């Protein structure tokens, strides 16, 4: 599978993402600069973490107007899978490809630690191979990760089974102490209505090898590859 990893000025998780794609998962991939305007030949898109455009104005607010984002819109509209990680999640929300917004952590602190995640649904390209009941342990590193949407949107997300991951304690309980940023309904990641565009604040690319303290992130990428392969088989 061919992964595009977008690069904006001040993206800083791009190298980690490409490392995981190529060296851990054995897939092909390349960086795509934000001024490019085509994703031709790509099977999947990762919008990596960082501080695109210095987080000026609002996180992700400027990046959404980069030329490559029009190509991402078209890629997503055709069913192509897109995963936004951390700043990538913020960009997807600003772009309107995902609902809601990420605002300042309730603690006002930049939180940099490992958190526990409950997988709320396995019906997505990004969660289908995560074992039932498995609590993921992934790192976060953000100051603006508090997920906000109005009640009607939150209810709709629940009704449509679009919440992918929720902050939890080690036993998978959705507690307030397990929620590092005050996200409403403990939402750590979600997908769009068509289920092919998703975002999450935790960093699976920083936790895909045991040497890094957790390899749980690999389950997300392996789910994705499984989904891509089955989609290709169906198309063939």
């Amino acid at each position: 599978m061919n992964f595009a990893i977008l690069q904006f000025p001040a993206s800083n998780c791009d190298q980690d993402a490409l490392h995981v794609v190529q060296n851990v998962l054995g897939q092909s991939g390349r960086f795509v600069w934000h001024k490019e305007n085509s994703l031709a030949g790509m099977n999947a898109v990762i919008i990596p973490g960082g501080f695109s455009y210095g987080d000026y104005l609002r996180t992700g607010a400027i990046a959404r107007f980069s030329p490559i984002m029009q190509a991402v819109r078209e890629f997503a509209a055709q069913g192509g899978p897109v995963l936004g990680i951390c700043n990538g999640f913020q960009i997807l929300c600003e772009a309107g490809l995902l609902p809601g917004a990420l605002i300042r952590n309730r603690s006002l602190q930049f939180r940099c630690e490992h958190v526990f995640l409950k997988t709320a649904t396995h019906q997505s390209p990004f969660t289908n191979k995560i074992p039932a009941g498995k609590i993921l342990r992934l790192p976060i590193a953000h100051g603006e990760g508090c997920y906000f949407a109005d009640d009607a949107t939150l209810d709709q997300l629940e009704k449509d089974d679009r919440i992918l991951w929720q902050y939890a304690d080690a036993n998978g309980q959705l507690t307030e102490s397990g929620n590092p940023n005050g996200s409403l309904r403990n939402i750590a990641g979600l997908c769009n209505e068509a289920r092919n565009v998703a975002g999450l604040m935790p960093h699976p690319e920083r936790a895909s090898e045991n040497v890094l303290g957790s390899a749980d992130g690999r389950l997300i990428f392996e789910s994705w590859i499984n989904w891509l392969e089955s989609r290709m088989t169906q198309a063939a």
Partner: protein
Amino acid sequence: MKAKIIVTPKKAVLDPQGKTVQNALEQMGYKGIGAVHVGKYLEIELPGADAEAWRKQVDDACHKILSNPVIEDYRFVIE
């Protein structure tokens, strides 16, 4: 001529920054104050003197990029 734009968090949105500033003010002795909301102020320099001609464009820019309608409200004057 300038567009003077104020962007504030929506009332329904958690505003931990405003709450923290409120707490700090109370600790400093400013008793009896109400809720504090922290927003942004932007000035855009505009050529000419026809404020009405710019109003729609400024409003459009506020809606598209200068604020995020999911979490923020805005208001502006051109003078």
